[in-house]
């Protein structure tokens, strides 16, 4: 059965392109362009994994959504994605275990996300 991915990002182009590419790679994709829509979609599509943008309408929307996803569905892994440059701010690639626990995300990727990279991360986090 195809793995189900929930994509949340307020950049509609990012959503559209990633959805097309992931579907072409055999995944089932639900997309949402805000935290609220993301939470709604979470209940409806029961994803195997969520891919969440950090900076949406508010700078920390991604953290907020991630927190709620973990609270409602603790077994769904979350990948956090951001275009914020590591050299001027957060460096997610180097996030320590403690930071990861606090943020509760299971993986971090920098934007623009390479499709192969995302698929590798999805496959690593979702078994079977």
């Amino acid at each position, binding site marked *: 059965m195809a793995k189900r991915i929930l994509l949340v990002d307020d950049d509609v182009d990012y959503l559209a*392109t990633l959805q*097309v*590419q992931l579907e072409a790679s055999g995944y089932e994709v639900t997309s949402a362009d805000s935290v609220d829509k993301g939470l709604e979609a979470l209940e409806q599509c029961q994803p195997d994994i969520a891919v969440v943008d950090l900076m949406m309408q508010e700078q920390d929307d991604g953290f907020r959504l991630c927190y709620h996803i973990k609270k409602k569905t603790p077994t769904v892994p979350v990948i956090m994605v951001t*275009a914020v440059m590591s050299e001027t701010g957060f460096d997610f690639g180097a996030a320590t275990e403690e930071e990861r626990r606090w943020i509760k995300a299971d993986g971090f990727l920098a*934007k623009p996300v390479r499709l192969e990279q995302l698929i590798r991360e999805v496959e690593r986090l979702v078994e079977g």
Partner: protein
Amino acid sequence: MDTLRVLVVDDELGIRHSVSRALRDFTVVVPDVDVEVGFAVDSAASGEEALEKIDEQAPDVLLLDHQMGGMTGIEVIEQIAARELSILTVMITAFATISTAVRATKSGAFDFVPKPFTPAELKETVRKAAAHLMTQRRARQMAEEKRRVRFEFIRVLGHELKAPLGAVESYLTIIKNRTLGNELDAYDQMIDRCLIRTEGMGKLILDLLDMTRIESGQKVREVREINVLTLARSAVENVAPVAADRGIEVILHCEEDVLMLGDEGEIQIVLNNLVSNAVKYNRDGGRVDVRLNCDTEIVDIAVSDTGFGLSSEDRSRLFNDFVRIKSENTRDIAGSGLGLSIVKKISDLYEGSCSVTSELGVGSTFSVSLNRGVSLENPNNGSRGDK
């Protein structure tokens, strides 16, 4: 009240006691930075003891005798410099010769009090030292704050430039790989999205240049008498083709010249931003009203549209950097999120104000008030730029 730590170093017990007594209940108000400062005084009987105390906890101000039994005052200053500590030092000495003063100042002393001194003389010297320290600290805080704001701006700018680049790259990858097979219509839509995103990036770059021009203050502002009506006409003409395409009527309600002292380029940026936003965020077949009013002091520019309207939450943050209202209605509109923040910055230069009133689904009115005859120096010089 802030407290500055003072260390008195003198081999005469009487001096140490009298300094402690004089400063015990002494306070200084530093008007430039609006703080009151008190003093906590500690003392040492030799240079060696002073350095031990400094190594434990460095004071803010050092009152330092020069001629002591062991190390001299200047040797203490040199030791402090070697430790790369920044302590404001005032020399107190009976050997108040010019040459000692020069040597001490060269080694980094801030000031000099000759012995014997009265409590009033000591207090005056300490007052100067405290004012210097507090002003320096405030300047450092402001520089740090400025650096932080700049850093944050660049961080968000990086995000705003990377996002459209990423989107265009992804669309091009899909098109190149023919991921959607032979659905040519889908590819056409993707190309349209690419064009919208690159247009947005172009606009961001132009707005950044405008903003740099306003904020740098390096470019000379050409302030002279200008006619706001002429600039408003030009802004309306600029949007005419786009407005006509979408059946939007743009009406300028002003017959008479509206004169003010200002930089033509700046006021044109304000009008262009307001009028082009009113068209961009309007519905097809809508209407834009541009009104100019003035009294003896103020020019009011008000631009109304019949667009989607704004929530109160959106209204409150609209004039900040990089704010774009994201909704179904705005997704196809190229914007940088800097236009209104630039309008706000320009209106500040004219001691003016910006505001917006709006009703969801009905439309919005953006108003900018500008002082007609504001004093005309460079924005980064003089008091006006600080307000």
